């Protein structure tokens, strides 16, 4: 009788052992996102803030001491070169109190009047500014570290933050050789190259972007790197859905990508992201039509 009981226990135990040792789990192929290695132009980007100014701009100040008797051309008037803007009456009896005309040295628009009728001015006081709104220039300051790559003739792009679609071609006219110690910059003059375009207003502040080609490079996203013994590696697609690890030598980091000095070649496909950490011998389940955008 007893042995029956015991045998039952033993067999139940054995059954349970058998059940629990059945550990075969379905093969789990990791899903991966791939990126094809491409050679890119190595562009050094220099972005600086720029201000739109009038190329022709004249600030006229008083040569004599006296009163402003009459302002002929109010603010915003279009004037020709040599046209009288205002009259100054000389206080000096030696000059017989004659009204002296003050003329605009350039053709353009009266953009600023620093004085008013019947105001007393001294020698050297600012009177008015005439600018030519048709001819524009851009002024910028380049950090000294970028100066070696900036020279006259360098072309770039101008854009204003508030109107994103507006992009205008610009060119460096000249760079001052003098670096201001206080700001660490050198002043430069730029101009719009497309004269036909609708140009921004004087006073507008925007960004000038210059891209200087320094040859070609290979870049990989930071997410694609794995480390082994502290050395960076990438997982390169081998055959249809296998992979092998390859060591890479990295250059500088640019935002979320790295420049690769050596290790991968054009046309190779590397794993950027995977649904789980990859182990040797994994068969990859490649996610179609979803590839990370190459920077």
């Amino acid at each position, binding site marked *: 009788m007893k042995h029956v009981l015991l045998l039952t226990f033993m067999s139940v135990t054995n059954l349970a052992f058998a059940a629990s040792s059945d550990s075969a789990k379905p093969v789990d192929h990791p899903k991966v*996102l791939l990126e094809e290695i491409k050679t890119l132009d190595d562009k050094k980007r220099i972005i600086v803030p720029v201000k739109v100014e009038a190329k022709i701009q004249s600030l006229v100040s008083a040569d004599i001491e006296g009163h402003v008797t009459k302002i002929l051309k109010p603010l915003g008037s279009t004037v020709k070169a040599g046209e009288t803007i205002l009259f100054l009456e000389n206080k000096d009896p030696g000059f017989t109190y004659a009204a002296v005309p003050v003329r605009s040295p350039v053709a353009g628009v009266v953009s600023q009047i620093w004085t008013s009728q019947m105001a007393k001015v001294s020698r050297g006081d600012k009177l008015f500014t005439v600018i030519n709104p048709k001819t524009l220039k851009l002024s910028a300051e380049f950090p000294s570290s970028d100066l070696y790559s900036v020279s006259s003739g360098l072309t770039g792009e101008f854009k204003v933050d508030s109107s994103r679609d507006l992009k205008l071609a610009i060119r460096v006219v000249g760079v001052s050789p003098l670096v201001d110690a206080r700001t660490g910059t050198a002043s430069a003059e730029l101009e719009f190259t497309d004269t036909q375009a609708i140009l921004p207003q004087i006073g507008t*502040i925007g960004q000038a972007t210059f891209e200087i080609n320094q040859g070609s490079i290979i870049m990989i996203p930071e997410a694609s790197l794995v480390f082994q013994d502290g050395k960076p590696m990438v997982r390169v697609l081998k055959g249809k859905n296998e992979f092998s690890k390859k060591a890479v030598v990295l250059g500088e980091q640019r935002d979320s990508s790295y420049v690769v000095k050596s290790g991968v070649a054009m046309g190779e496909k590397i794993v950027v992201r995977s649904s789980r950490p990859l182990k040797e011998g994994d068969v990859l389940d490649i996610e179609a039509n979803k590839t990370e955008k190459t920077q």
Partner: protein
Amino acid sequence: MNHLYTRPLRVYVILGALALWGIFSGLQLPISLFPNSSQITIATNIPTGSLSSQQFFETYGRELEAGLQGLKIDSTSVKELRAEYQNQNTLYRITFEWGADPEKSLLEVKNLVNTRFSSASDEIRRGIWVQSWSENRGFFAVSFYSPMRSLDDLYQTLEPSITPVRSQIDDAGSFGLWNPNRKEITISLIPEKLAQYEISTVQVQREIQSAVVGLTGGTLRLGEKDYLIDLPKNVDNFAMLSQIRVSPRGKAAIFLKDIAKITSGISRDSRQKFKTSGVDSLILFASPKEGGNIKKMADQILQQLEILRKQWPADVEFKILVNPSEFINSSVLSVVHEVFLAAFLAVIVLFIFIGSFKNVVTAAIEIPISLLMAFILMRLAGMNLNLISLGGLALSAGMNVDASVVVLENIIRHFEHLKGKVLSYQEKVALVIKAVAEVRTPIIASTLASLVVFFPLIFTQGLTHSLLGDLAKAVIFSHGLSAIVALILVPTIRLQLLSMGQNLESHSPIEGLLRKLESFYGRTLEGFLSNKKWQAIVFGSVTLLLPVLVVLVLPRLEKEVIGKPDSDWLLVGINSPAFSTVKQMESELDNLEDSITKNFGDEMLYTFTQIESAHDGNIMIRMKHKDKIAAMVEKAEETYKNTPTLSYWVESWNPSELSIPDPPQFRLEVVGGEPVKRLQAAQDIHALLTEKGIFDKVQVTPTADKEKEIRVQPFFNSGSESEVLSKEELSHYLRVATDGVYAERIFQKQQELPIYLRSASDEVTSVDQLKAFPVGFEGRLIPLGALAQISLEDRAPRIYREDQKSLILIRGRLNKAQLKFTKERQAQASEAIREFKSKRPTDNTDLPSIVEVQADKDLQQSLDQLKWAVAISIALVFLTMVIQLGDIVHSLLVLVAIPLGFIGVLVSLFVFRSTLSLNSGLGTILLNGIAVANSIILVDFIRKLHQEGKSAKVATVEASLARLRPILMTSLTTVLGMLPIALGFGEGGKILQPLGIAVCGGLWVSMLLTLYIVPALQYLYLARKENKSV
């Protein structure tokens, strides 16, 4: 006692009064999910100010750590101290041993930190906070809605009445109404304009602050009165903000409107977001303070909301999203059901054996009475009603009738001897007293024996003590009282019934079957005693079975601290490092929500979405039924598989209050050495373990990544500040351009509107863009890149310390389904680490050491303590036996039941896929007490008959036959009483299931084997003694 039995009314009134007191006490007992002892962790965050993490550690950290580690709250000391030195903050987490007082712990840490930092810089001191910390604390959430109001309107209607309620909620730690439409005033500064007018962001903030804040100019006494000089705020509404002058004195007037766009709208800063069933809603969140009772808190809030509801407009409705109280109630209630079921089953067993309804009632009445009286003691002991203490009551319900049964049986036996005689009342009294006196000592002794096993639990510590203390106390109270009640109440009722001339004879309804069973037992036992071959086989296989089970089965049992109750919440979370905005996470969660509705629509009630950050969000799904939750978790795991850009996590969530440790399967510490080398080693090991795929998850604390930072190093001239931009201005400008800076706040229509300074330009997404930010100087525009070196650099490794030791922690975890391979995986991992270590250079002394640490220390410690408790309880039972029997050999014979019980425990735990946990350990302890009761009845009676002169064989068979029924009755009441627990009825039952399985399986097997093996061993012993003496 004499007087007691003859005055039934007095006994009934006293016991009735005690029962009423018991009911009253029971109703007063606070209800919670787990015993109210807890493990306190206090966190303190200290800003590092201008110091780097390394400098901070050297200046303050080392000393502070020593101070914190040395803290003592009453007699509890610090169990673990974790410190994370980050770049701007340092976080210390101080975990005390179990049972420390929460308020005192908080106060002590606060005092220490305040003392240590009393002379630190203002920047550090202002940012210090100390609060209790919980990784998994339940919370309460209610959403508000109205068909007629906008969320803003609703918020303004409700907020003024809800916020003051906080003071009414005793146990609330955090409490607040969350508004998804939280408004802010955004001042979008236009960098170009700032540059053009050469105005710094610091200046803008200063001007705004001075405009919206009113000041005073002291008081002036005019005549007899004091007059306050008031400089009122210039700006107190949104429209006037644009008129704030921002240019410095002496320069042309520039107003805020000239340099910024001023808007008011939904806060851009809201990284957190919550939705109910896909819709934004107002949500009231509350979570209990450390040591607080979450159920009490939830009940109080609901009560307050019901009161407030009357003040609110009729269209305002609220819906309870997460209510732990409901969950706790239903869990606790289900255990209460088990108590009743256990009692009912015990009564059924009694009825089957006794037959008479009156007799059954006489014995069973003590179940509720001892239970109610146990409530009195529980209240006095400061316990509460929880799954554990109620579980103890459920367990004892079946055991409690034992004493009554014995008393009852003995009285019946005495009266059976005098069948047919007419007895006077005095004779009846004398007879009852005699019958009770006969069993009094054995009852007290056997009750003591089953309670003495709990004695060692008093000496356990920490988790074991906190969790099992309540269970042990509940069993001791109710079972101990049951013996006293049995000795008082049962004879009184009997005597009263007898004096009323009632016939008390009864026969079991299955008398025929029992007789057949008895004759079968008699025959088989006799056969077994005379067959040496069978004896050899049975003894041999049983002796072999136990070590085999210990070696093969024991290590294969899953270990856990304690089971968790089922819940009706399914949680699906998303993790995505690739997302950069909350919007992205929100749209992904919207997709998930759609999919969940499609897949689980029929099973769910509603969802609750929480977005923690751009990378982290989850959807909580309230299911209709709890019983399907396990299947739903599996279905969700099956449905939501990780993709390269998203990883999912699925679990069932319950608002548990107790931080039950969830240890990893593998734990490794990289200790000492240079920080950089330590990080390097951690990275290598992380890669190694990940590559081998030994664990499903490998976590590294603080981090496995070499972290980078954007370093902005201003080019200052010869130590002085730059003429263009000071460091403070630079930092402020950068913060405005990236995160935004809080400037001030204004109140409009009683609503607080924070004012934030942000940048009007596009979001910065590259370092080059940052370099191009314009700064105005002498009419020129200077790019930020010219004023400072801006570059991506390696960040100094973070410092993480545990118990004053710098280390990096690597933890491996297995998924639930893989847990049975824990041992193998641990071995694989250890092997891999050994190999890794062997490849490291040995001559370099700077290298950090790699130490494998027992991962489940807490659990292992608890189980080790239990092992000792089991061993001590066996020793105590043995001592009790020796005292009672006065004979070592017979005492040992009694103890044979214990290893037989172990066989049953191991087999049933394994077969029913249960776990090695605190509860199954406790079940084993409990079993020791009960199992010996069976064998003691046998051994004692066989010995008695043998001493009376019967031959060893006759004595053995006769005694065994006579004791079959009592053994069956007491064992079956206990086994059946625990059956509902063993089957895990109700979600509360899941917690105690291992205990029920251990006791049921163990007792069942032990009873069957005891019936044959103990008599056989005793027969062999007695026969040998006979032979010797011949």
